[in-house]
Every structure is written in C-alpha cells, then in structure tokens.
C-alpha cells in the first residue's frame, strides 16, 4: 500500500491537495482538500445589495460573469423583476463568451498536458509548413534549457499514448488556443467593459447599450471561434479520444448529476434555458426537476466546528483549523448533498440533463460523438473522464452556435431602434431571493436576504463545492473522491493518472472555500460612505 500526496494540484484555479492510497496499482481510497480560506460571505454582510454584483465576481477570476449573473438573478428575484429581452440577450452573450473562453482554456491549457507529451512532439516528422514552424519553435525552446511552465512534468510517462505527430499537432493547437481563449474573453469585454470582472450587467439588465460598432468588432471574433471550435477543438477531441478509450471506464464517480440551468430564454423559466435545469440520479438517464430545498451542507470533515447538515441559508458554522487528519478534518470545503447524495456538476451534468430531457441539439451532438467513438447507443460511457472531455467540447459548440443567433437578434434589435436594456427598480427594505445559474464548472447558487435595505445574509454554493466535497457525516465520499477510486497508477512517484481524473472536473478552488463565517454568525456592520 502506497500513500501519495499531490499538493499542489496544478493547472486548476486555486489551491487543491489530493491524497490517495494505492494498492495493487490502483487507487483504493482518496481525500480531496481545499487549502485556502477567504470568507466572502461575511464580507458581503451589511453591504448595499447591488454591490454583490461586483463583490461576488471576485470569488472567481476564471468565471466572474457567472457569479455576476447569479448575483443579478438573486437580486432580481428578491425585487421581483426581469431584465428586458434585449438585456437578457446581452447577458447571455457576456456569459456565453466566458464559457467559450473557459472551456477552450481548460481543454488546451489545463487538461491537455495530461494526455499530450510535449517533449515527444519533437520526434514528429511533419510535412506541413506550419507544423514544421511550430516544431522548430519548440526545439529552440527545449534547447534553451529553460523549460518554464513545461519543466519537470511527467514527459515520457508510459501512460502517454499519442503518436509523435499527434503530440505535435496538439502543441500547435495549444498555441492557437491561447489566442482563441483571449478572443472569447474580448467578446465578453466588448459588452462588459473588461474581462475578467465585467461591469455592465447588474440586476436590471444591461447598462451598456450595444452599438453597430460593437457588433462589427464582435462578430468576426465570434465567427472565427465558432469555426475553430468545429474544425479544431471537436476534431482534436475525436482524434485523441481513441488513444485513451480506457478512460471511458475511469473516473466515474457517483453518476448523479445536478444542473440549475443556464442561458435564459424569453420566459426566464429555468426549465426552458438553453441548457435546462434538472437532476439525473445514479446513472439512470431519467431526468427529474430540481428542488433546491433538499440541498444541505455537512461540515463533519471540514475545518469547522461540528453541527448538523443544514440548508445553506440556515448554516451556522464556525471555522476551527485543526491540521490535516484524514480520519477527522482535512479540508476548508464543506460537503454539499442533494437529498443526502453527493452530486456531480459541470458540463457533463448539463449535457446529461439536456440529453435525458430530449434536448434535440444535445442529443444529436452526443449520439453522433458516441457513434464516432464506436460506442453508439451506450451513453453510460459518458460517466467518465472521456465523457467529461467530450461533454465540454460539445457544449462549447452548442453555445457558440447559440451565440451567433443571439448576436443576430441583438443586431436586428439595434436596427429596429430597440433601446430597452434595463428594467428600473427600487431596492426593497426587506426581501429575499435566489439566483440559480451555472458557471462553466457547474451549478452555482446565490441566496440573499435583505433587511433595512442592506444584505443581512448572503450564501453561495459554488460548483466545485459539489465536486471536491470531502466526506460527509455518514462517511460517504465526495464526488471526486469517489471518481478517483479504481484509477490505475503505473508509477506512484509520477501519478499522472490521478491528475487526469481530477482535471476532468475542472476544479476551481477559489470558488469553493469562501462560504463560511469564520468567527461567528454575527452580522457585521460595514462602514458605507
């Protein structure tokens, strides 16, 4: 029995440590640990409810607009308004561009290096000029002896299976994707002012009024990304996956999925979103509507004083750092449960829920992909590392295509002189609301309570809270902990396979360990000018 600690897990957002026990070349047990605490919710207490739009974006610099929009929805719910339809479209565009950015960045820059051997790309014998150039650039880089971010990785590990030419192609696309992820963010910024930390879509809709200039700036970037996703991103996934089909049976996890849904349609009904709300339990592919009231959080194995599992809006918990002890407490993350179940959230959860609901585009994309990988009619292979990689790529395409339609609708609105982008409202003295939405990494919920026109309480459950949850009071492992079990580990000193499973969830730790009042449940007064 070998015990392996990987700390830090890199190529993620934030600070995560994973500890596993390996026996007979396979993971027997696993512990995931968030190692940073910031305490956002307490910072929010006592503030102007509108400021949550800006404050909560700083929970995560990778998916700030998701927090922005969850905060906007939360306040709109409390006030009882919706944005005008054109405001809804602007919000969808700013959010959609962030999804494109995040998924492209995740696949090429965070996850790909688990499957692509950069150094082995030097052995490729490319015929195409552009690939020769990339190889020359790479050769010079390696010969310089300064490997920078590529230093000391697991290059040459037996689990790398791609032929040299495909490794080189992937390196070339790694570089191309650096441009594409930036282009996608620039789209968010055209409407949002800047990205990260967009500025223009608070509760009420959009304070930015799109112009023809915006569209002239935006459209070529969007069409270029749309074309590139089809031609390069989807193709790369389909080209690489056959070499790693063993990972269609690795990293399964609880196979229970939760989605709050994302991208509103004119009805603002979460069930009718482009990617709809819903849950799928125990790998059944039968969908149910989601009920946020059965969500609880458990702190038995988190660095907090013990208490009963409670709905987040009732959480009464105090931090108590007690060092790392796998048997007791080992993480700053709490353990969210849906009716006592750990749930998986993210692109796979959204696509599985959409698929189970018979969403025509999702169904077509998934069925075609299964057929291309030679597993037609077996959607259960999606519950795996390969499934998460495929789901993210397909979702990127689905969103890019929808964004082209939204941008056309905005342009038509501009031409027809539509000016209504913002619904004016008066801040209530007392109210409460919920904003249920999705970040690229999965289901994101904000809950507020307003008293005397100020935030009396603010609660956030982030996607990665679900995925990197520690064990709960009954000893049930969290989602990634379950997914890691059974993962083969060829060389305990270089646990590449563990990274593959962990990265497949796209963990985002800044989003996770900020949710609890660290000293007391007291409402803090904030000095306001």
């Amino acid at each position: 029995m070998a015990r392996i600690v990987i700390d830090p897990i890199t190529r993620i957002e934030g600070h995560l440590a994973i500890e596993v026990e390996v026996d007979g070349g396979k993971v027997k047990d696993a512990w995931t640990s968030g190692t940073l605490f910031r305490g956002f919710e307490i910072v929010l207490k006592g503030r102007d409810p509108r400021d949550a739009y800006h404050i909560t974006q700083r929970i995560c610099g990778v998916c700030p607009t998701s927090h922005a929009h969850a905060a906007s929805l939360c306040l709109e719910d409390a006030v009882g308004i919706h944005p005008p339809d054109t405001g809804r479209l602007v919000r969808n565009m700013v959010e959609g561009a962030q999804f494109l950015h995040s998924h492209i960045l995740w696949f090429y820059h965070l996850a790909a290096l688990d499957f692509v051997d950069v150094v082995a790309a030097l052995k490729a014998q490319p015929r195409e000029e552009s690939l020769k150039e990339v190889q020359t650039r790479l050769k010079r880089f390696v010969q310089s002896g300064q490997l920078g971010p590529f230093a000391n990785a697991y290059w040459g590990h037996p689990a790398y299976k791609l032929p040299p030419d495909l490794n080189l192609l992937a390196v070339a696309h790694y570089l191309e994707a650096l441009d594409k992820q930036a282009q996608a963010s620039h789209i968010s910024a055209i409407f949002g002012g800047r990205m990260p930390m967009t500025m223009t879509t608070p509760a009420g809709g959009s304070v930015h009024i799109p112009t023809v200039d915006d569209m002239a700036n935006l459209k070529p970037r969007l069409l270029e990304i749309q074309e590139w996703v089809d031609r390069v991103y989807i193709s790369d996934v389909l080209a690489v996956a056959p070499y790693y089909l063993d990972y269609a049976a690795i990293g399964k996890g609880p196979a229970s999925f939760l989605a709050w849904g994302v991208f509103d349609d004119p009805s603002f009904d979460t069930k009718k979103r482009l990617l709809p709300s819903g849950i799928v339990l125990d790998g059944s592919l039968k969908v149910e509507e989601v009920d946020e009231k059965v969500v609880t959080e458990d702190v038995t194995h988190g660095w907090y004083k013990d208490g009963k599992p409670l709905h987040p809006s009732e959480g009464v918990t105090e931090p108590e750092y007690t060092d790392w002890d796998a048997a007791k407490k080992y993480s700053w993350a709490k353990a969210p449960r849906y009716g006592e179940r750990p749930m998986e959230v993210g692109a796979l959860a959204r696509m599985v829920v959409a698929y189970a609901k018979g969403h025509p585009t999702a169904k077509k994309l998934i069925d075609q992909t299964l057929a291309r990988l030679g597993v037609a009619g077996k959607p259960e292979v999606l519950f795996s590392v390969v499934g998460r990689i495929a789901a993210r790529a397909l979702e990127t395409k689905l969103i890019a295509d929808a964004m082209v339609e939204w941008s056309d609708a905005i342009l038509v609105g501009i031409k027809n002189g539509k000016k209504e982008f913002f619904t004016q409202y008066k801040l209530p003295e007392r109210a409460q609301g919920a904003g249920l939405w999705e970040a690229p990494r999965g289901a994101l919920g904000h809950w507020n309570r307003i008293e005397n026109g100020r935030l009396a309480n603010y609660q956030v459950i982030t996607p990665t809270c679900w995925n990197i949850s520690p064990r709960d009071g009954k000893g049930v492992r969290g989602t990634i902990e379950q997914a890691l079990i059974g993962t083969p580990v060829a060389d305990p000193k270089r646990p590449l396979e563990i990274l593959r499973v962990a990265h497949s969830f796209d963990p985002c730790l800044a989003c996770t360990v900020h949710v609890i009042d660290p000293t007391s449940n007291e409402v803090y007064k904030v000095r306001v000018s």
Partner: protein
Amino acid sequence: MDTCDPSVIQALSRRDFLRICGTTAALLGVGQTAVPRIAEALEKAVARRPSVVWLNFASDTGCTEALIKANYPNVAQLILETLSLDYNETIMAAAGVQSEEVLQGALKRGDYILIIEGAIPTRKGYGMIARREMLDIGKEFAAKAKAVIAVGSCATWGGVPAGDPNPARLKGVREALGVECINLDLCPVNEGILVATLVDLLLTDRIPALDGFGRPKIFYGQTIHDQCERRAHFEAGRFVERFGGNEEELGYCLYKVGCKGPMAYANCSKFRYNDRVSWCIGAGAPCIGCSEHGWVDKFAGFYERLPGVKIPGIEGVEAGADKIGLVAGAATAVGIVTHAIGTTVSGRFKEKPPPEEAEKAPE
C-alpha cells in the same frame, strides 16, 4: 544579463520582434525612437530569458487570467520567447512533488523576478501550499528576488476578501512580507500595465518611479476622471441620471450613478482592456475605483454618488473641474487618502529604494 546570442533570437521572427518593441515603446510612452534600445534589451533578455516566479496566494486567479489576455507581446511570446515563467500553478505542467522541485530550483538559482498574485493570509492554516503557510513561502521567495511585483488589489493591499471585516486577516505584500515591491493595483491588473512594467524592468534594470502607494507613476499618475472620454459631458453638466434612460446612448457622464473616476488613479481609458476593445466607463459602467488601496470599503455603495464632488454648472465649471480630486478628498468622510506625491526610485533592483514620502493630504 548574458551577452546576446543571435541564434536564439531567431525564435521570434524579426517582424514580430520589432512589432513587439514598437508596441512596448508606445505602452511605455517613450516614443518610437526608443525602439532600437528596447530591441537591444529584449535581445539580451532572449539570450537567457529572465526567470519569473509567479506565486498565487489568496486570489481568484483573475490576474493570471488578465495576463493570458495580453496581446503586446501575447502570452505565447511571453512564455516561449521573452520570459522564463518558471513557476505559475495555473499553467505549469508539473504538479505535486515535481512542481515543488521546480519551485525550489528557482529559489536556489535566485535572480528571478517575483510576481505575487493574491493577498497573504496571516491566520495560521488559512492559506497553505504543500502544507506550508503562504506567509512563509512568500517571505522565503521575496528575500531572494531581484524585484517583487504585486499584481492586483489582493496582492497590493488585500483586495475584496480583505473588505471589512477581513475574515482571513489578509494583507498585501508590502505589509505581510515587509518588502519593497512594485504595486500594480486594479482588480484585475490591467494586462497592458503588467506587460509594460515587466518589459520596462528588463529594459532598464531599474524599478520605475513609484507613487506613495508603490504604483508606477507612469500608469497611475492621473485620475480616471481627468483622462475620461466622457469628461466633456461632466464639464457641460450632462449626466446619466439613472440606468435604462436615453442618456447612456449619448455617452453622458456616469458620475451621478456612482462613478468613482474622480478619486481613482489609473490609465484605464488609455490602455483599455482586452485587446483594447473597451473599458468600464467606455462600456457605460460607473468606475468602482478598484485602482485604490482599500477601495472595497472606501467606495462601497458602488452605485452611490461620490460625495463632495462639485458639479460644474451648479458651482461653476472652473472651481469644480480642476480641483475635483482635492475637493472630494478634503470633504468626504470616507477617509480616502489622496494620491501621494511619489518619489523616483533610481536604484538597481536589489538596492533599497529611498523611504517613501509620507502620504500627503491635500491642502
């Protein structure tokens, strides 16, 4: 730095290279005549790419996200050809023990530029990497760095999570580690400012002239208000009175819907963001003042009107316009420390800059 090795420079095409030098010159405001000098400095840098260690502490990674939006030079050129980004947890391939080896290797070699993103938790156990306190890691690495750059609000003074009541007792780099550093405020850091500061360091081997908050004067020397494209509407008394009206379409001033531009010092309107496509006020959003230390509490009520600013047309144009920062600073109860007059730091990286001039309140 090592002498120039021309074979390595070929990694960049000459055309690309001169374009980078040209845009860098523009960003630094030194004019195109400086291009050959910039080219020479970068060519030397390319011969042995300067080591950069990027430590990410209590942050949301927004500043790493800003870095990868850079376009002049872009992130591929930065990583492959300009710098040796020896440690950055978000993008580095190695993990766990192997990433720790990389980090220790950089420490042993020394001679790196240290970039810190994120605040530093000062409560035990609240921020750890490889089961070591972030505070200890920060001290160790700052001690051997040839220059330290704090990027973004969190690293400069604590940032949003250090807003009242600052649950994790977060502090900025200067305060937590007791070292001098270049503070690049804004949340997130402007990618143009970050890249230009880095290139300036490579170019001159000197810390740039800093203001009283440790910010390079060249980028943070004037208020956003004084450089704002909507300023003429302020002078003329034309305001966006509330969101959703028709004033935004006319590009009116955002002061009345909460803009903090009169009290915020940065060149956002000049550099803009994201391939320079836009910036906050340009897109119709009131500035939240994120360039200032303590902005989260000082400017709380982001949609509330900044007190004490004289509005032209009511009190007279000349009285308000030129003195706006001073008037607000003196009159407001929020305790904003106005822009202090900074001192030029002319020493080499390792030389301690002269003591900062005290933060002066306006007359």
